[in-house]
């Protein structure tokens, strides 16, 4: 291997990226846009669920209950209906996800200290949102009953009831249970996987398309030099993109960062090598830029979104699917990033996913070197 040849290729590639608007866009705009879109778009917490209320009782008590809904950050009252017909219309049109109907005898039952039901109607086309909204609604109603209970006890002069045992739970590593805190590191992994593979997927196909490949392969440059020379500049660019995305995650989206920066840099560098190698491998197989870029998108986007544990927990997948996730490179990086961000894990604690990425990088390196042949056959 000759360092001079490697340098010549790396330098040429860097100049070409700098002068190619399409590549520049992938380098600079794509990560920014994806971080913004996904960062704001993907949130598993539910806030401001639209609610339709139907107060058939119209008493101060029923109004107190509905005020609690109004005060909750999880709900937003979009409509105050005056008939069941109106309620079902609002649900049908999708104006609201949940409707709360207070029965006509609500205050009477409360006054006579009887249990009284409150009806909740839910649009379960999105079952996840529906069940979370249901949980929130129950919590609001529970708060209301506790309040009523307290008032009654005070009225009768009894001391408040003591609960015998109570579970005191404390959540570690993501104390606020905010989904954003574990989604944001996942988004960084996804952006890097996408951008990285895009960058290198174009490098060989561009030479084929422009006709420069024929002369390039008539020179003594070796396949290995060509691969390293072409990946090196994108590695630098990728690290800059990674710094950009991680900064956005920490400083803009305020994802809590508890780990060491060196651990983050080392593991990110390793993941980038895997991702860039994968893009190069695709480029070696497909001689058109558009084709290569689309395959790169397909190969990185779907597995990373579905199988990396970024959106769907791997532990809850059926066994065969779980087995497939071991082949998804971003799975390991998502694990690493979440651990560094939320738990502050060290390199040693991340030994297993790091080892898997090293193996991945080695296999991709071998395949990518072999996939490219210096021949026109």
């Amino acid at each position, binding site marked *: 291997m000759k360092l001079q040849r490697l340098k*010549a290729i790396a*330098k040429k590639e860097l100049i070409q990226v700098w002068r190619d608007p399409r590549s520049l866009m992938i380098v600079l705009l794509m990560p920014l846009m994806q971080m913004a879109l996904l960062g704001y778009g993907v949130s598993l917490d539910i806030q401001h669920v639209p609610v339709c209320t139907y107060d058939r009782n119209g008493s101060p008590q029923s109004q107190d209950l509905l005020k609690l809904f109004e005060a909750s950050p999880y709900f937003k009252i979009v409509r105050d209906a005056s008939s069941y017909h109106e309620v079902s219309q609002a649900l049908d049109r999708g104006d609201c996800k949940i409707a709360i109907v207070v029965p006509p005898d609500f205050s009477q039952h409360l006054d006579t200290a009887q249990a009284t039901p409150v009806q909740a109607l839910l649009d379960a086309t999105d079952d996840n949102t529906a069940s979370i909204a249901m949980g929130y609604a129950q919590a609001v109603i529970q708060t209301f009953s506790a309040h009523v209970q307290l008032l009654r006890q005070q009225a009768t002069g009894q001391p408040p009831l003591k609960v015998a045992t109570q579970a005191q739970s404390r959540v570690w590593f993501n104390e606020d249970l905010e989904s954003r805190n574990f989604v944001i590191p996942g988004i960084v992994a996804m952006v890097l996987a996408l951008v990285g593979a895009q960058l290198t997927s174009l490098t060989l196909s561009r030479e084929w398309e422009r006709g420069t490949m024929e002369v390039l392969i008539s*020179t003594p440059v*070796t396949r290995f030099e060509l691969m390293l020379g072409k990946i090196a500049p994108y590695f630098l660019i990728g690290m800059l993109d990674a710094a950009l995305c991680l900064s956005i995650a920490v400083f803009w989206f305020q994802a809590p960062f508890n780990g060491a920066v060196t651990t983050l840099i080392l593991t990110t560098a390793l993941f980038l090598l895997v991702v860039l190698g994968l893009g190069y491998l695709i480029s070696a197989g497909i001689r058109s830029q558009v084709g290569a870029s689309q395959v790169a998108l397909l190969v990185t986007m779907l597995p990373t979104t579905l199988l990396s544990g970024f959106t769907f927990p791997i532990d809850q997948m059926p066994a065969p699917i779980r087995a497939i996730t071991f082949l998804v490179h971003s799975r390991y990086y998502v694990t690493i990033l979440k651990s560094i961000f939320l738990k502050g894990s060290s390199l040693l604690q991340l030994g297993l996913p790091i080892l898997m990425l090293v193996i991945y990088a080695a296999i991709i390196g071998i395949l990518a070197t072999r996939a490219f042949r210096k021949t*026109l056959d």
Partner: protein
Amino acid sequence: MSAALGEIRISVQNLVKRFGEFTAVNDVSFEARSGEIIGFLGPNGAGKSTVMRILCGLLRPSGGQAWVAGFDVARDPEKVRENIGYMSQKFSLYGDLSVMENLHFFGGIYGVTGARLAQRVQFAVQMAGLEGRETALVSTLSGGWKQRLALGCAVLHEPSILFLDEPTSGVDPASRRKFWELIYQLAAGGVCVIITTHYMDEAEYCNRIALINQGRMVALGSPSELKRRAIHGTIVQVDCDNNGLMLAALEQMPAVREVAPFGAALHMILEDPARDLPVIEAALNARNLRWRGVETIRPTLEDVFVALVSAPPVRDTAA
């Protein structure tokens, strides 16, 4: 360029290349020496470029053998590549890089460094006539400049063998002439040059010509040699008003050995014009056909090509 003049640099024996059912190169053999310019002449798709690509190590031969700079192209393509310069049919420089950036890139790839690189780059810039435009993007240059710069890049590492695949297509005549001057200079310095072309006039500049048709080497020799060998008789150019009728009539006459359209006129081959022309003219008159004029001319390579395409291949006898 260390090779002594006249030393064998390329040796090809019974070379065959098949693409599936199609035989692109069929039993081609020849030798080329340092300081020699060999032209591959033939129509598009004849197999000229395929032979060249095999010799550059870009395609694997299906049969036969080829040595370039003493290395087997099938077994040692990397060694071959260190000794050759190649200009492909398509424009092969990086359009989004400047003149200097292209030269430095190829310098880096071929391992040319330091003072030698500076001297070679200067040589290439001068040769291409690009002084003062060193920082221009190559895509902004016109055809002739691009082509001379591509040649400059291909010889930056001073290869002893140079392959040029239709280097002058799409370039204006003045630039073509300049280009050929450069090739003569390189050959005078001992470089073995192989060039493909379908310009017949350009082929006349070569020391030897290999006529290639349908994958076969139909003839190999110097231009004058080929003309002597291929044309038995004298070529007479016929100018007339109706080429079609005239061609049909002449084809039937026993005195006419061969007749073919040539530009706006017809060329026919006669054994003895002084004896045959009056006979032919009389026969034409009988059919109510007449020519505007006849002229005995020296054969061109096109005549040779027409005479040879139906003939069996000829082995290298010139060396």
